[in-house]
């Protein structure tokens, strides 16, 4: 019973690290640079927010399957496929969590009063330093909210994960998948315990966001 929880935590935390790194990179790219195809690329990042998880999972299956556009060269290089591994669960969690983190962080950064950025420039700060020392701390609320939302989404991911990672106990069976199969098999006690875990973790995350918002400092 503990195994789905451990798998979920492993998958979600790894996905979260990837989500943070990708969001920081993408937000910098989209808020500081102008380039062709910017809108198209941004639409693609946001797409998982509106697509049903099963369609997303099927898309990933087509893309990363042995004969897929990305799966084929990966198989040729490493003689292994991502599909039905815990890596695929991480990928699914990453894809669904990224737009939430990206959107929230970008919203936080674009809401910063432009005067702070201009003041930093007049003080001789390079754009790199402005991002880390001014923009990111001032967009703290957006960052924290995004983090919590992405983590919640990664922990709760079901449809896409089931399609690309399957239901392998101890390997790819996350809590939502375990609940589904426990209920299907009539193992209600197991389902209830896992439900409790999901409820507690979700409540914890919401409490975390609310308390951080209340502690916000303004000037």
């Amino acid at each position, binding site marked *: 019973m503990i195994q789905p929880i451990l798998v979920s935590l492993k998958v979600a935390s790894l996905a979260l690290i990837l989500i943070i790194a990708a969001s920081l990179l993408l937000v910098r790219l989209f808020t500081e640079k102008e380039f062709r195809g910017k809108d198209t690329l941004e639409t693609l990042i946001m797409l998982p927010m509106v697509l049903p998880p099963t369609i997303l999972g099927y898309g990933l299956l087509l893309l990363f399957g042995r004969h897929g556009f990305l799966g084929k060269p990966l198989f040729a290089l490493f003689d292994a496929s991502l599909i039905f591994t815990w890596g695929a669960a991480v990928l699914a969690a990453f894809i669904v969590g990224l737009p939430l983190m990206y959107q929230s962080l970008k919203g936080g950064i674009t809401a910063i009063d432009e*005067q702070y950025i*201009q*003041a*930093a420039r*007049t003080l*001789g700060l390079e754009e790199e330093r402005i991002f880390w*020392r001014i923009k990111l701390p001032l967009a703290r609320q957006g960052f924290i909210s995004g983090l919590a939302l992405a983590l919640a989404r990664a922990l709760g991911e079901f449809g896409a994960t089931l399609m690309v990672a399957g239901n392998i106990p101890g390997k790819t069976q996350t809590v939502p998948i375990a609940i589904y199969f426990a209920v299907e098999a009539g193992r209600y006690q197991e389902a209830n315990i896992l439900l409790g875990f999901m409820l507690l973790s979700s409540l914890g995350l919401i409490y975390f966001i609310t308390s951080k918002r209340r502690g916000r400092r303004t*000037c």
Partner: protein
Amino acid sequence: MLEVSVQKKLHLFHLDCTFKVGREVLAVTGESGAGKTSLLKMIAGLMQPDAGRISLHGRELYNQDNLDVRTQDRKLGYVFQDYALFPHMSVEDNLFLAQKVKDEAQVRELLGTFGVDPLAKRYPHEISGGQRQRVAFARALVTKPDFLLLDEPFSSLDPQTKERLYKEFHNFRKEWNIGALLVTHNAVEAQILSDKVLEIRDGRVVREKFNHLKGRILEIVDEEYYKELVIEALGTRLSVVKPEYFSFANYRENMQVAISIKPENLILTKDARIGTCGGNRFGGVVKHVHRTRRSTKVELQVGEETLLCALGLRAADRLDLKKEDHVVCLLAEQDVEILNTLD
């Protein structure tokens, strides 16, 4: 010397300004939306002009041939209207951030200059508006800028704090000997704090006023029907006669005062024999003659000060002034305006 000649199409008008300013304070006044802040932002590199040229101490910062030095490399100090202190950093961290190598002694010294060193560990939201303004000035000087750009730095302060900070501004300017461009919509503030005032309306310079001077009261004559102040300014003694209802109660001898002489009130002559029937009279040297279609502006060197004189076209033709000409300036006693005390 900051030399600016910029053109920019804004929402409501076309901004077109040309001026230069050395180690003095140039105040840019005008109503809201006249283009004052846009002008400041163009100088700082925060907004790009459509055409023109900006240079500082001979170093080009912008020209229309594709030169546009980054804000970070312009070496300009900028004090924002709302100070723009970083709210997530303490007062001292706001200053440390601007240093390439952390120099605690410099930060302490700067905070000390502005009397805010006891607030070093506080956050901007924990200090008053006047204290925030002092921190903003200290922060703008951390990078040892070549010139200061001040965007209405006194506008959000109460009158008492404002008056105290005017004096501090005077003192700090004296100590640092740095040129500044002060944007303000307050004409009195412009007169008190600056050496020269540039009034802009709809993006164009409509008036250029010099002649804001500092002086010291030598003598106060306050009799029933006659009131006179004798002020030491322009390297000479200036008599200031005030109407009988004017109170001298706020003045005392040796007090520093700010005075203003309107360019159109100065009379120039090359004939040393002409007097003023008891008015003020002093010599000056022509530095620059600027002729426009309607009038002629003459920049004069009087002692260590620069005075601006506005002449009518006929008077200008009659005098035929050229650079380095020696002239006599005549000024009526009632045309010297006392703006403020500086002590």
